[in-house]
C-alpha cells in the first residue's frame, strides 16, 4: 500500500468522524468543527488518491488549494450566522434541537 493510499484511507476515517460529530453534537460550534473535519478528510482523500502511484497529481492539489480557501470562507460565514443566532435566540443550537442535560459539562470531559 502506497503512502498516498494510506492518507486517503485516513481521510475517509476523518470524514466519518466529522460526520458523526456533525450529527451527534447539538452545539453549533461543534457542528461547524465537525463540518471542517469532514472537509479536511475530503481534501486528504483527494490529495492521497491523486498521489497513490507515487507521482503527485497537480490537478487534485490545485482543487484542494481552492477548496481550503472556500472552506475558510464558508466557516467564517457559518460562524457569523451562528453568532447572529446567538444574539437572536440566546442559544447556539438549531431550532428543534436542544443541549442534552450536562452537554456543556461533558463536552470537555
Amino acid at each position: 500500500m502506497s503512502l498516498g493510499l494510506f492518507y486517503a484511507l485516513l481521510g475517509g476515517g476523518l470524514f466519518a468522524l466529522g460526520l458523526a460529530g456533525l450529527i451527534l453534537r447539538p452545539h453549533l460550534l461543534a457542528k461547524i468543527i465537525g463540518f471542517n473535519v469532514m472537509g479536511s478528510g475530503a481534501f486528504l482523500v483527494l490529495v492521497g488518491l491523486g498521489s497513490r502511484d507515487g507521482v503527485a497529481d497537480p490537478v487534485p492539489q490545485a482543487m484542494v488549494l481552492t477548496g481550503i480557501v472556500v472552506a475558510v470562507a464558508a466557516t467564517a460565514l457559518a460562524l457569523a450566522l451562528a453568532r447572529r443566532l446567538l444574539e437572536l435566540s440566546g442559544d447556539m443550537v438549531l431550532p428543534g434541537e436542544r443541549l442534552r442535560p450536562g452537554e456543556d459539562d461533558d463536552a470537555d470531559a
Partner: protein
Amino acid sequence: MSGSPGAGRSRIVTWAVVGLCLGLAGALAWAMLDLPAPSTRLPGQVAAQLERSGVEHPVTAVLLNFRGYDTLLEIAVLLLALLGMLAAGVAPRASAPLGASSMLAALARALAPLMVLVAGYLLWAGAFRPGGAFQAGAVLAAAGVLLRLAGFLPAWTRPGAALRMALAAGFALFLAIAALGLTEGALLRYPEPSAGALILAIESGLTFSLGLILAGLFLAGPELPRREDGGGTP
C-alpha cells in the same frame, strides 16, 4: 438523568449514529482499496501542456489556466461569503475591548511590512515553484488580522465604496481577462504568447482581493471600544 427513558433512547441513537459512521468509513475504505487505476493520466497531460500554459509550475498552471473556471468561481464564492457575513451583521455586544499590549504592537509593527514582502515574493514565485495568489493572499490576510489584533486597523462595520471596490477588484479583473478570451473563441482562453503576463496580472489582482476578503472575514464586525493606552495611531 441517566435513568430517564429519554437518556436511554438518546444513547441508542448515539450508538446507531456511531455504527453507521463506522460503516461509512469502512465502505469508503473498501471503495478506495478497490479503485481501479485511473484511465487518464492527468499528471502526464499537465506536463505535456505545461509549456503552453505561460507558467512553469504545474499547480499554478492548473489553477489559472487549465482549470481557470474553478478559480474564477472560487473568488466569486469568497466574495459572496463575505457579503453574506456583512449582510448578517453583528450587534456590538459581549466583546472585550481590543487594546494591544506593547509587545504585540511592536511585533505587529515589525512583522506587517515583512509579511507584505513575503506575500509579494510568494506571488512572484508561483510561476515556477510552490506559491501563488492563494498563499500570498493568505499571508496578506494574516498581516491584516495581526494589525487588527494589535489595534492598528479598525473593524469593518460598513465598508466604504473604496473598500467594496477593492474587494471586488480581483474578481472583476479575472472576469475581464476571462472575457478577453472570448475573442480567442472561448471564455478563459488566453492568447498564447501573453498567457504568462495575463496570469501574473490575474494573480496580482487575486492576491490583493483575496488578502482583503480573507482579512475581512475576521475584520467584519462592530467597532470595538479601544483602550486608550494601547496601540498608537493607525
